């Protein structure tokens, strides 16, 4: 069973994402902030990470840098799912190693599910 880690500080958004991913048959881990997310990555090695950018404590960009700088986690695909979406932010996210950058308000949940499917590592 494939697993997803959702790092999202808004409880309602996190709940909606978890619900849908669970109903798609994924194992779901969640964290409201980056350091908790790093812990979940270390303990569970998720197959994909959905990452918000504005988080309490460390930002999503800082989380992304740490994940990508560590050999044991650098290959985990990270999809940024944020309501920021300035061209600078998108460029920065992709430069730091995210595989995609989706603005939450612009995508149906079905579209998010469809898009992330292509980023799971081939088993």
């Amino acid at each position, binding site marked *: 069973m494939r697993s997803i880690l959702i790092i999202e500080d808004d409880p309602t958004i996190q709940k*909606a994402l978890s619900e*849908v991913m669970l109903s798609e048959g994924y194992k779901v881990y969640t964290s409201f902030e980056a350091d908790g997310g790093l812990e979940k990555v270390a303990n569970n090695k998720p197959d994909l990470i959905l990452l918000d950018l504005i988080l*309490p404590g460390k930002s999503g*960009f800082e989380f992304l840098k740490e994940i990508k700088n560590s050999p044991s986690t650098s290959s985990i695909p990270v999809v940024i799912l944020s309501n920021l979406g*300035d061209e*600078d932010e998108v460029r920065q996210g992709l430069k730091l190693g995210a595989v995609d950058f989706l603005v939450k*308000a612009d995508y149906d949940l079905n579209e998010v599910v469809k898009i992330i499917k292509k980023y799971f590592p081939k088993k």
Partner: protein
Amino acid sequence: MIQTELSPKKKRKVASLEEQLKTDFVTLSSHQLRTPLSAVKWFSEILISQKRGKLNRKQLDYLKEVHRSNERAIALVNDLLQVSRVEKGKLHLDLVRLDIAELFEEVINTNKLTLSANKMTYHFEIVNGPLPALEVDKAKVKRVMQNLFLNAIKYSPNGGHIDVVVKRTQKEVVCSISDSGLGIPIDQQDGIFQKFYRGGNAAKVQPDGTGLGLFIAKSFVEAHKGKIWFESEEGRGTSFYFSLPIKAK
């Protein structure tokens, strides 16, 4: 000044993030607005899917209204963000060389169902071809085309015909979209490209429009050093034109 209800800790965090992410207050406010809008969007989609339980007809209809209105709010926030970027001179062009006629055909294809539902026909023509590849921001030029094409459909409530012409001149490519619809009354033509301007006909055919589409279209065209203009006669239809310069390779 917009007051946001943030805790002191979060305010400090937002302020330092603003520095870190080089965003401005409007961008962060848009983020704050988009978050609850995303929540409404997604939970209404979950309910509308009826995978969590069957709804009766009225409940489904009302939820679809909630979803539709929410989508309009999201579109408005997105448009306001664009307007803010334009006004702060932060409009960035991601330039690629492409075939403008192909881009227009893409836009027309996307709208074929809408054309058919509105009982409309169209004709697409290239004049003085072949067209050179133009250096443009694909998403922004596509947005201009989409906006003008959809307006041509919307302002033809009784069906009709749309002519799309892409014409090469010596120094530029000029695109025109002409409809045979309501036209714009002469006393309402001056404000067409202003922010939030909506003429009398706009309220009739598109009561939920934001009044920002043409302002954004003009900003996008002018960012490419192009021009946008129109000709219209009430009761006979409107032609919108925009030009994009041909740059030497």
